[in-house]
């Protein structure tokens, strides 16, 4: 039965990647606002519950309305993402479904039902349930969204750092051996903290910016003032938190995905005492000549900072792209094999697997010692299994410009946001934010696209940086994909592009109209 099938068209892989990236990028336009606004409106409704002041109820309902408009798009894009694992990455779904499916199922059972049940109570239950039940529903909606983020990020973290599993040559797939290692992987914890906190920043920026727009127009001053107070405090705490968790994330990346870190830094040749590049001239449209260039031109760097980021030691060793491709010795003396050696061992693993299967299940009615021998060879080389599908070591280098610039945009805007929230809070508590200079209001509005660009850039680093791997060191994209004709995937890509873009335009227009309309006042 084997090898009767067509070879996969490379454009199928590219279109499948493009479709998944499109869906994920759109999904991440809506989800962070959902997570962020959930905190803001939860705080406001709590204020209403404690004070019984209808101002807080109006404020909470206003932000809930904006939350609802955005929520629907998050749901719509989310369902596509989940099913695309099967439709476009079917080989992946079989090979790691035993591990990867579990967090997705738990997400559905634990998080989605909580979210979808209580969001209805939150919207339609104001006059139907008690104030306490309603408040609980509002927080449970946000909690459901956050738990959902936990499980999907556990799944994503596992792809970046596969733990708690073993390959089973009899079933021809990876199988889970430790749920705790998967669910509580340090990579997942860092990823969750960094991602959710960054989502709170989006919610905070949105709240502050909308409020500043009201101040710019001289409307809704009380709503704007109170919203800015809550938004800016949440935003500042979250921005500082994102910086700290970002450092942790970078540390983990250095440990388990050194190539990603090297691409983020355009670090061609590593070493000890590495400086962190503030900026350098990396051609944004082409892969740099990392084999022959010593470093990116016009580099301005912060001394020792990369070593600190990657190893918590100013003199720590950080490998560059060429080190990783050619092999290097770690400070603890362990030798990291060259890419060619890994590819060789990966091919040995695949050959051993084929031989094992033939010996055990083929017509030769296998000799137990032969079966055991092939199994032993497979186990020895299994850590490099995915490398067996690599045709050339250059495939192991992710596209450096995207990683390099996206990382800098994320960090740069992140720093700007800390400054922004500090300035806003200065005006709130030391001056009068309702009479602040107009540039502050305009800068708040400018922060919305900047914060989104930073947030999406974070994902670009995470996902471009791990290429070519769907699962780090285990499975490249071309061994993960469904065997579809590229025209089918191209067609669905454009359908999604048109659909999502149209709906995004509708959503933005509705949000703008709703903001212009402003909150409804119960007393009126």
């Amino acid at each position, binding site marked *: 039965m084997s090898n009767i099938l067509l070879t996969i068209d490379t454009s199928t892989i590219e279109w499948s990647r493009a479709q998944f990236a499109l869906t994920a990028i759109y999904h991440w336009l809506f989800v962070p606002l959902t997570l962020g606004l959930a905190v803001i409106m939860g705080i406001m409704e709590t204020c209403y519950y404690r004070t019984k002041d209808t101002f807080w109820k109006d404020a909470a309902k206003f932000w809930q309305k904006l939350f609802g408009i955005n929520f629907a798009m998050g749901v719509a894009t989310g*369902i596509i993402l989940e099913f695309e694992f099967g439709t*476009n990455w079917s080989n992946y779904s079989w090979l790691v479904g*035993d591990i990867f499916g579990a967090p997705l199922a738990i997400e559905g*059972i634990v998080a989605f039902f909580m979210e*979808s049940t209580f969001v209805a109570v939150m919207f339609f239950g104001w006059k*139907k349930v008690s104030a306490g039940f309603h408040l609980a529903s509002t927080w449970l909606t946000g909690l459901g969204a956050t738990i959902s983020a936990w499980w999907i990020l556990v799944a994503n973290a596992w792809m970046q750092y596969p733990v708690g599993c073993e390959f089973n040559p009899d079933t*021809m797939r990876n199988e889970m051996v430790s749920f705790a290692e998967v669910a509580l992987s340090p990579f997942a914890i860092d990823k969750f903290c960094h991602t959710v906190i960054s989502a709170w920043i989006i919610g905070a920026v949105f709240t502050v910016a909308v409020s500043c727009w009201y101040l710019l127009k001289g409307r809704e001053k009380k709503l704007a003032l109170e919203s800015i107070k809550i938004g800016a405090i949440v935003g500042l705490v979250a921005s500082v938190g994102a910086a700290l968790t970002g450092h942790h994330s970078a540390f983990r990346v250095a440990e388990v995905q050194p190539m990603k870190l090297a691409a983020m830094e355009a670090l061609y040749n590593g070493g000890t005492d590495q400086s962190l590049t503030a900026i350098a001239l990396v051609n944004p449209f082409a892969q740099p000549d990392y084999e022959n260039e010593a470093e990116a031109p016009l580099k301005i760097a912060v001394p020792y900072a990369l070593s600190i980021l990657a190893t918590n030691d100013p003199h720590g060793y950080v490998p560059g792209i060429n080190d990783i491709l050619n092999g290097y010795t770690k400070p603890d003396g362990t030798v990291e094999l060259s890419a060619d050696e890994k590819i060789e061992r990966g091919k040995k693993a695949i050959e051993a697997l084929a031989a094992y299967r033939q010996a055990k299940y083929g017509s030769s009615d296998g000799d137990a010692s032969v079966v055991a021998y092939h199994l032993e060879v497979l186990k020895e080389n299994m850590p490099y299994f995915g490398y067996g599908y690599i045709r050339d070591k250059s495939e192991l280098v992710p596209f450096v410009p995207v990683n390099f610039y996206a990382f800098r945009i994320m960090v740069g805007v992140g720093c700007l946001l800390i400054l922004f929230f500090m300035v806003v809070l200065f005006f709130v508590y030391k001056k009068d934010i309702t009479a602040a200079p107009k540039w502050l209001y305009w800068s708040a509005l400018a922060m919305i696209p900047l914060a989104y660009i930073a947030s999406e850039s974070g994902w670009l680093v995470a996902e471009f940086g791990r290429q070519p791997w769907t699962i780090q060191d285990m499975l490249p994209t071309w061994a993960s994909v469904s065997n579809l004709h590229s025209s089918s995937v191209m067609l669905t890509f454009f359908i999604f592009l048109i659909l999502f873009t149209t709906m995004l335009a509708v959503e933005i227009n509705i949000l703008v109209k*709703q903001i212009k309309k402003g909150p409804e006042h119960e007393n009126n």
Partner: protein
Amino acid sequence: MSYEFLQQYWWFLVSLLGALLVFLLFVQGANSLVGSLGGDAEGRRLVINSTGRKWELTFTTLVTFGGAFFASFPLFYSTSFGGAYWLWMLILFTFVLQAVSYEFQNKLGNLLGVKTFQTFLVINGILGPLLLGGAVATFFEGSNFIVAKDNLTGIQPVISQWANASHGLDALLNPWVLVFGFAVFSLARTLGILYVMNNVADENIRSRASVRLVGTTIVFLLLFVAYLVHLLLKDGYAYDPATGVISIEPYKYLHNFLEMWYLLALLLIGVVLVLYGIIRTIVSKTYIGGIWPTGIGTVLTVLALLLCAGWNNTAYYPSTADLQSSLTIANSCSSEFTLCTMAYVSLLIPFVLAYIIIAWRKIDRKKLGREEIATDEAY
């Protein structure tokens, strides 16, 4: 818990989710009739707001159904979704349209107009149940795929393939798939009518619903009975639990019902409840609770059918291209460790059902009327 028990248990859970999903398709069923049930613009809005308080449960159940399949039977997830690409994509497109339409349809600045979004709801209301029903029918009718795990070590490592270029649309050429698909669609409409009659306090809508209930029920019963007879008489796909070899067995599904008498009982109780809810609603002028017996009956009936498809050494996803590629709960399931871990997680399901019921009762304590739409939060 033995591995065999866990396989059966997870097939039960996936079947239960599938059965609940079919019940919750009342949202789609009612939406497909929004024009004729609602009458005028205000009436249409009332119907949409009635289903709008539940649509996320249907949506979530669909997503969880997919997630549970992924976790427990990943080979099905990989083979069906990756193979029947167009069938699943069409289903997803319609659900995407639905997800945004509730929130956007009546909002100022929605660019496309209220009618466009209501049309999206109708499209989802028709195609959602029809295509989902068609997809489920392939559990009995078979699909055109090949599974070759040894491909992983070959030049082309993808293990599951669709054996023709239609990528799932070929299923719609099978008349029995269409019969089952339209049966599910008619059932969704019947459930939708019963739900609206129960949930909306509006005499005009209730009387229009009452009129349409008869015709919809007749169509449903004709299609359902036709498919049930076909199912009981058709050959099925059996496997030998010792060797895993799959073979064609005449009257396999009839044998399953006879050998698993409790499934037959479940099916009969389900059908009786479905009929009871419908007939009492038609006969009585005042009875509006038909959604409950008919809904519970639907869950029991679909559960019995899905269990019949996978239990008793039956291949639940038969391959018409290569018999031995057919999927069974034994050859397509996750490892014992994963099934066991997920079995512990499944203990949360009663808790989840409990809070859904509490929230549902609180929201539906007062029937939805025109006044609430005009003065309270509404789509």
